């Protein structure tokens, strides 16, 4: 099942690469949609197993010489994220279901999807790293080729930032693998705690991806210049690679060393919440605004991870999934504005979208409300559990410090409300400035919007869908 989920997009990508002409126009998107659907279904078919064990795995010898194995497996941390990946890719393919879509773009999306699923299921450090890097160059092409006219510097900035981080992470991997004598994540855990330096290097590498302040500046540029599907995958999936890595590699694989850097992680996470919240207040470009808001949300996830408690892990996973759905939706909507009007600048888009394109406006509003963590929508639970985890951290984080961070983090919620209210006022409300291009949401856009709203609402109302994957926490009567 894991193999099928990895193979389906890969095969689709290969087919599209070999015979692009046979898949002109909508057929490429159809093929992509089918492949992502297959991956989604195959991942969903994996029976939910006991927490802390691999529910399904493939463990084959691979590179004996350096002890690397083709070892993939799914557990409660990776499963939701892998599902999210397949789902968002499906949404992207639906989004691309139009006449002028390029088969090459769909092929690159398929590679990105396969690689990201690969990262989430990899149980071998080298394999993890290969999947981690695999998606980068396709993403560079997606941004540089299909993004805004001046997207190339932003794409390169994104790539070089990430690659620097991941190369440093590679050094960390080598260090850890040497000390532990194994590349298998599971065996490194058993070996005990090999290396503080390794943990730091890995965390630094992942911090670029998450991203934590102050290594975040690639993100607004890349997200705002990328094409719609590129932004969605960047925000929805790529950032999760970083948070997932922090959970899997730092918290779970190197717990003792990670405890010592947890205060930094937490501090930077909270700094990111504030930093991003404030930066959002001064943005004119809607996509840039959403990009900055991602930094804030990832700050919450980083804080959750830094607590290193059970609750924190649940919070991080839930927060990651919710952010993927919500920010994905926001980027779809902001992207559709940009595709339609050629700009995402709030000043240029004009006011009164409620009157000009009501459904589009309502969708934006709901997405905006979801992004501020409105209870009842998916964004809430991650934030709440993060605060709860910060209230009683399990790591070396001193509780006083942690509670202070928790309180500061709540400021981020207020800031989020402020920037959503601001963009609602600037874009949605006001006397409508009618533009010739005004047109309400079209069918495929509506389909994607609904497809994302449903899980946002369902997860908001039934958080147990994810909570129950994890070991029970606390008192159960």
């Amino acid at each position: 099942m894991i193999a099928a989920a990895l193979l389906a997009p890969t095969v689709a990508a290969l087919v599209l690469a070999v015979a692009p002409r046979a898949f002109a126009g909508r057929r490429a998107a159809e093929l992509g949609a089918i492949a992502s659907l297959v991956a989604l279904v195959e991942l969903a078919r994996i029976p939910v197993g006991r927490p802390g064990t691999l529910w399904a795995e493939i463990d084959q010898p691979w590179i004996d010489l350096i002890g690397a194995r083709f070892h993939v497996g799914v557990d409660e941390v990776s499963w939701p994220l892998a599902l999210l990946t397949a789902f968002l890719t499906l949404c992207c393919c639906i989004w691309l279901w139009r006449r002028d879509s390029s088969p090459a773009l769909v092929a690159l999306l398929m590679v990105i999807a396969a690689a990201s699923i690969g990262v989430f299921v990899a149980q071998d450090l080298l394999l993890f790293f290969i999947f981690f890097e695999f998606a980068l160059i396709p993403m560079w092409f997606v941004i540089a080729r299909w993004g805004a006219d001046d997207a190339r510097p932003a794409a390169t900035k994104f790539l070089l930032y990430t690659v620097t981080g991941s190369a440093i992470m590679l050094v960390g991997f080598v260090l850890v693998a040497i000390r532990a004598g194994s590349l298998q994540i599971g065996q490194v855990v058993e070996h005990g705690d090999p290396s503080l330096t390794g943990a730091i290097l890995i965390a630094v590498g992942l911090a670029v991806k998450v991203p934590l302040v102050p290594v975040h500046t690639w993100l607004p540029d890349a997200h705002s210049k990328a094409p719609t599907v590129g932004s969605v995958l960047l925000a929805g999936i790529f950032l999760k690679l970083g948070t997932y890595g922090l959970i899997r590699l730092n918290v779970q694989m190197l717990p003792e060393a990670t405890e010592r850097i947890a205060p930094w992680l937490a501090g930077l996470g909270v700094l990111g919440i504030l930093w991003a919240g404030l930066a959002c207040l001064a943005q004119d470009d809607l996509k840039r605004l959403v990009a900055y808001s991602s930094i804030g949300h990832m700050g919450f996830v980083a804080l959750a991870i830094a607590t290193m408690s059970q609750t924190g892990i649940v919070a991080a996973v839930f927060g990651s999934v919710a952010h993927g759905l919500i920010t994905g939706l926001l980027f779809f909507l902001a992207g559709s504005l940009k595709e339609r009007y050629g700009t995402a600048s709030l000043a240029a888009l004009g006011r009164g979208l409620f009157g000009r394109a009501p459904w589009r406006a309502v969708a934006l509003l709901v997405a905006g409300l979801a992004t501020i963590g409105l209870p009842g929508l998916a964004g809430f639970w991650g934030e709440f559990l993060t605060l709860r985890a910060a209230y009683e951290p399990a790591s070396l984080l001193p509780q006083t410090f942690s509670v202070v961070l928790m309180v500061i983090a709540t400021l981020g919620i207020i800031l989020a409300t402020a920037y959503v209210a601001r963009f609602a006022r600037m874009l949605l409300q006001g006397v409508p400035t009618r533009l010739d291009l005004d047109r309400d949401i079209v069918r495929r856009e509506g389909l994607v919007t609904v497809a994302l709203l449903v899980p946002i609402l369902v997860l908001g109302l039934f958080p147990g869908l994810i909570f129950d994957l994890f070991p029970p926490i606390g008192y159960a009567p």
Partner: protein
Amino acid sequence: MIPISWDIFGPAIVLAGGALVALVADLLTTKRSFVLSWLPMLAASVAALTLDVWSAGLPFGFDGVILIGTTLIVLASAVLHTENAMPPGEFQFLVGSAAAGGLVIVGAVDLVTLLVGLELLTLPSIALVGLRQADRRAIGAAWTFFLTSVVATAITLMGIALLYGITGSLRYGFMGSDIVGSAKAAVTVGILLTVTGFLFKIGTVPFHAWVPDAYRSASPVVAGFLASVSKAATLGALLVLLYLGLPAQHASIWQPVVAIVAALSMTVGNLGALRQRDGVAVLAWSSIAQAGFLLAPAVGPDFVVSTNAAAQYLAVYALANIVAFVALAVVLKVRGSTSYEELAGLARTDPWVGVPLAFAVLTLAGFPPAVIGLVTKYVVFVPVVQDGPLWLAIVMAVNVMLGLAYYLKLVATLFAPADSTPFRSVAGSAGVRLAVLVVTLGALGLVAASVWPSGVLDHVLPVTIDPN
């Protein structure tokens, strides 16, 4: 002490013999025909490779890389057969004898043979660079290469003389392990002067200046030879000399220097490549940077680990370089230039050349989908992280990023929307088609290795047993 290895010298003799036959066959005919010298050399390369595999068996090491590289280069040299300024017999002879020289230095067990073998490798290389006389720059580059080379050789000789003066022997393993006190300084100077010539040939900073000039002025096929075969031989010889020729406690003398040279090479090489707008120029600078990565594992104390790591990196690097340079040779042939303007969109207009070139470049960058490039990057990181200074590992990490900056630019150029007229190199002459075959085969090899890295790594192990 390593015994004189006929496993290595046998193939060398075959190669040298083939080279002579090629030369004579060419001389004997009045009408110069490429095939007449090409075929014997090809046969000799294949024979030498077969002999090598047959006698030494799998897995192979530096000798295997040299022989496979030579075979591919000879095969691909068919692309040059219409270039009338390139005398075919002499070309094949020089390639064959240089490759034989490479085998000699890899198998040498004393500094005398090493030095003579190094000259056997160097002199034909210089001549090969100067051979492309359609281009005025070629002879200038040959002169540059020559002069720097003789200076480096003289310095190496001075080092050898010093080592001899202190230890009284030039045989590996006999160069005094009981050096103490004041002689320590002399040993230090001696070792460093000795390695200069090898670092020069590998193309490491600060001995790199000839590389960009020579690679860009020579035929890309020759550049490919220099980047793969010549580099493989010199690196192998250097590692054997350092680890086995010199007593183990001297590692503390040369390892810090190796670390610095490696760091400098990758950094300067990558920086130099950043602003290039020509395929060959980029690869030339990149080969300086790669030399740093090749050298880096030598900071480890363990001969087996370090040499295996270097050889594995080398094998993949050499194959990728051959693919890339031969592809560029084809481009040069059919388009007259390897500048980025000519390369733009190549992967679309001429996928049989462009796509392998892109894959080879990604291999050099160490990036998926060229998984094997990444895996070998991992391999060279291991000894560095394990025993080397951590700063070197960080410098390597940063250089992975720096390298990607220009490799990606090249790949992006190859896949850029093409505005030039499509040209199918597969429709070219027989020579071009053969070269494209080499490119395709090499790229297939890289793809196969990416899918199944063990297929390469398990078979590139110059040292399978601990010599101690």
